[in-house]
């Protein structure tokens, strides 16, 4: 006797996916994660968001020595990154190369994601002249955006990715234009002269004992890397805490305000990324808490409003 829930599940699959798929969405997502460690390739991709369109080259080699990756922005100011096994070796013109690398690698975990996103295999199409399968991740609540992932049918590699908001507006597009799976030479992965190695001393990290935690977090998001450090010399330290639901990510920044450092409640948007600032007061000292992430503005607002510290009314600003 088949369980009733199973019957319902298969009925749903039949309705939404008339063509039988060899793999389910979870398997496709696992394949996408595995492809990074298993495939060597070079290619070109575009990235587009509101107000920005950029083109990039990538050389990616996975072999017994691990994963090596060289990334080069092909337009505008040259920007280059070289990574070995996930660790950044050199970078160009980055404003803030901070020691975030200690963050544990975040693997795609379909079991975790499926609690917060409904998976669906939408069908097949073609990206970068390769057959691709489209997997949709639709949020089950209003606290995250939807994703469409276009995966290479042969290798599982992510060929294209769309980020879509609750009003079905496209926020961001990542898309390969060209992909080549032939062997890569060492020279192809060699950093150019403009890629500066990251040997400069990192700012001192302090232990976070500030207790700046929002009173509310959207369900499914868990705390990741946390640190306290000054963004530049001579400035008071900033508390930084990362949260993620396994796919979406936001960062909380808290730092003290002063006469020279005036700020007020503010909402900002850069492409898919929202930033919400709230002024808080503890024992007469003003602080600025800012939520930055690829999450719906209303969600960020709610997190920012949830600090159990006295919020400063906007009109009371000096």
């Amino acid at each position, binding site marked *: 006797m088949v369980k009733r829930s199973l019957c319902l599940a298969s009925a749903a699959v039949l309705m939404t996916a008339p063509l039988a798929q060899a793999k389910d969405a979870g398997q496709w997502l696992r394949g996408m994660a595995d492809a990074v460690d298993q495939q060597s390739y070079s290619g070109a*991709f575009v*990235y*587009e*968001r*509101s*107000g*920005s369109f*950029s083109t*990039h080259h990538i050389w990616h080699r996975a072999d017994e020595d691990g994963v090596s990756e060289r*990334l080069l922005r092909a337009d*505008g100011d040259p*920007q280059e*990154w070289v990574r070995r096994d996930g660790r950044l070796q050199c970078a160009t013109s980055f*404003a*803030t*190369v901070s020691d*975030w*690398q200690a*963050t544990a*690698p*975040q*693997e795609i975990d379909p079991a975790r994601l499926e609690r917060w996103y409904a998976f669906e295999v*939408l*069908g*097949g199409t*073609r990206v970068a002249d390769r057959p691709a399968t489209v997997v949709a991740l639709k949020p089950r609540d209003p606290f995250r955006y*939807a994703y*469409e992932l276009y995966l290479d049918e042969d290798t599982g590699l*992510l060929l294209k990715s*769309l*980020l*879509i908001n609750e*009003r*079905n507006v*496209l*926020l*961001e597009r990542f898309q390969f234009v060209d992909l080549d799976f032939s062997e890569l030479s060492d020279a192809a992965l060699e950093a150019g002269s403009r890629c500066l190695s990251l040997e400069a001393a990192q700012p001192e990290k302090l232990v976070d004992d500030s207790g700046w935690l929002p009173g509310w977090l959207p369900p499914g998001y868990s705390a990741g890397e946390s640190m306290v450090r000054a963004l530049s010399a001579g400035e008071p330290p900033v508390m930084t805490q990362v949260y993620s639901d396994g796919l979406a*990510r*936001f*960062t909380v*920044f808290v730092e003290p305000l002063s006469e020279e*450092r*005036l*700020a*007020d409640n*503010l*909402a*900002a*948007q*850069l*492409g*898919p*990324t929202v*930033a919400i*600032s709230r002024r808080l007061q503890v024992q007469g000292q003003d602080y600025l808490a*800012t939520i*930055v992430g690829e999450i*719906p*503005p209303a969600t960020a*607002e709610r997190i920012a409003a949830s600090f159990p510290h006295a919020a400063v009314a906007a009109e009371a600003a000096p």
Partner: protein
Amino acid sequence: MRNEVLQESLSALMDNEADELEVRRVLQAADQDPALRSTWARYQMARSVMHKEPWQGSIDLSAGIAAALQDEPALQMESEQATPATAQGSVLWRNFGRMAVAASVTLAVLVGVRMVNQGDAPTQPMTAANSPAPSMLQANPAARTGAVLAGYSQNGAAETAAEPLAPAQAPSAWHEQRISRYLREHAEAGAQSNTPQLVPYARAASMEGR
């Protein structure tokens, strides 16, 4: 001709999504309306800022477009009411596109950051997806009903769309700079963590200072 419709057409033209009817509509109206011409010029400047392209604001594109159109075969006229469902979808995109153009006028330290003191920051859209068939963007019928559009018209009146956003209180220079710094920190942290995706890297690499 309702001003709102004209603004939509102009937006569509700026987004390279205008059909011939709309191009003609804008050209004709711009001929008689100096205000529209200046709006058009502002849109062009805003777009060039968005794309960080060098732009000569004094160049008038309308003459060139009109000349090109004269060589085209006669267009098929369609009434507004008879617009097919797919075109309605594109009207929706256009309107979001208009918001994006308006938003980009307010520049911060990072190119493209839109800031408002208090209140909601409506998410900035980008161009319509010319995506292939299996796409949620096209699959969702809600995108075609225009209900979302109606909600937007209330907030962002077409008449004010071209004006720079003027919050009651502009953010302090320090705060502006800080928001840019936070955005970079957030993006670069995402790019440095060992994710299987290239998207966080692309986000970080796409950021350019003023």
